[in-house]
């Protein structure tokens, strides 16, 4: 299942500057692991020590917040758009 993932600017250092990447996964949990394999370090930014998505990170599948779907178990299908969005937008200052 290839999905398109939007990467927020604070995490682009990890993706070599890419704002959008493609990944293959069956669920959000699997997607986070797949991203970690390609871009090491991204998982600890998105998930806490228990593996849960951090409180101030929102993940949307086709515009729907995964907290209102089935969290990390949320299934993915070919062509889905996933966005990772920090809840508090940080400025560059």
């Amino acid at each position, binding site marked *: 299942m290839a999905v398109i993932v939007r990467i927020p600017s*604070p995490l682009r250092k990890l993706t070599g500057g890419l704002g959008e990447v493609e990944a293959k996964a069956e669920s959000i949990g699997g997607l986070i692991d797949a991203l970690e394999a390609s871009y090491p370090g991204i998982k600890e*930014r998105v998930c*806490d020590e228990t593996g849960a998505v*951090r*409180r*101030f*990170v929102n993940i949307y599948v086709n515009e729907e*917040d995964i*907290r*209102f779907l089935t969290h990390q178990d949320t299934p993915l299908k070919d062509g889905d758009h996933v966005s990772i969005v*920090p*809840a*508090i*937008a*940080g*400025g*560059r*200052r």
Partner: protein
Amino acid sequence: MGKMKGLKCRECGKAYPAEPLHVCEFCFGPLEVDYDYEAIAATISRDRIVAGPKSLWRYIDLLPVEKEATVGLHGGFTPMIRATRLGQTLGLDALYLKNDTVNHPTLSFKDRVVAVALTRAREFGFDTVACASTGNLANSVSAHAAQAGFKCFVFIPSDLESAKVLGNLIYHPTVVAVEGTYDDVNRLCSEISGEYRWAFVNINIRPYYAEGSKTLAYETAEQLGWRAPDQVVVPIASGSLLTKIWKGLKEFERVGLITGVKTKVNGAQAAGCSPVATAFAEGRDFIKPVKPKTLAKSLAIGNPADGFYALKTARETGGVIEMVTDDEIVAGIHLLAQTEGVFAETAGGVTIAVLKKLVAQGAIARRDLTVAYITGHGLKTQEAVAGTLGEAVYIEPSLEKFQRRFRLKET
């Protein structure tokens, strides 16, 4: 020395210097001020506070500024009113109102947070201040900026009450009315704050700004005779005020000024914008953003930044978060005015209506020492009560006409 050790992420604990920062670059959590409470406890005392200025600055030892106050010297220290008549009506023996409708200079609790934010902004050397606001904050930033000589940009939703728009313009800031909700305004301001070196009081200065709300708790404890109330009822917009009132009470306990803080912290929202009350009712620990549609525009934040912490505070203290309809809000404004002579804006109506509901539910008991926070003045939201009031009686200037009109007998 210095009472501030720096900033600290509320989520992951990562430490930062005490600079104009607000988001943890690692986990995206909010930053807050990290104090040296041992040093503060060693200096602070009731006597020292009582000898201080009759303003929020009497608590400067617990506020995030490095030197003396330079902006907003007369904010805070507002009346604590024993609300006997309202208490009788609701069935409460010990009800108090913290009356920030008469805060200086712009008649809302925002004069507290802005005094702290702009004093800090000056310490940082900013020459321009700005904010995203549902109205009261913009009024306060505009007034304080005028007095302190900052350049000023305020961003508001385009549908605000006319008095809240006028209440900016009179101070000659740049007023930007954004077509959209407060949440749209806030998002835009986050982007703008990344482009310019401005002190956005509720964005890059937020960790300092938000601390100003603690002074409501400090004053509450001092004015009640150095004790914490059993119950507080606090309106929720971003959720910051409620969180900081609790923090203030706990800090007073921590530095030894009061003991035995067991306050139940209750939250009040309008049904037309109730993301926190809804999460509370559904037992969720995350907030679902909503599109606000309520008379209480000052509380119309659909995606509240501190909603999670407000929820957590209410739950941990045994408080309740309730919501009320627009009709109940208007009835609350009337009830407060008719029993206590206090004319509150819509947020005050929300607070009083929720207070009433909590008493009726038995969540607040007759004997509980209860404080309700009235955070803004009714003259700013006159539209809310228009059409719900009686009219003046017009007569000719004649004693006979007067007596005939009112059927009063001569004495």
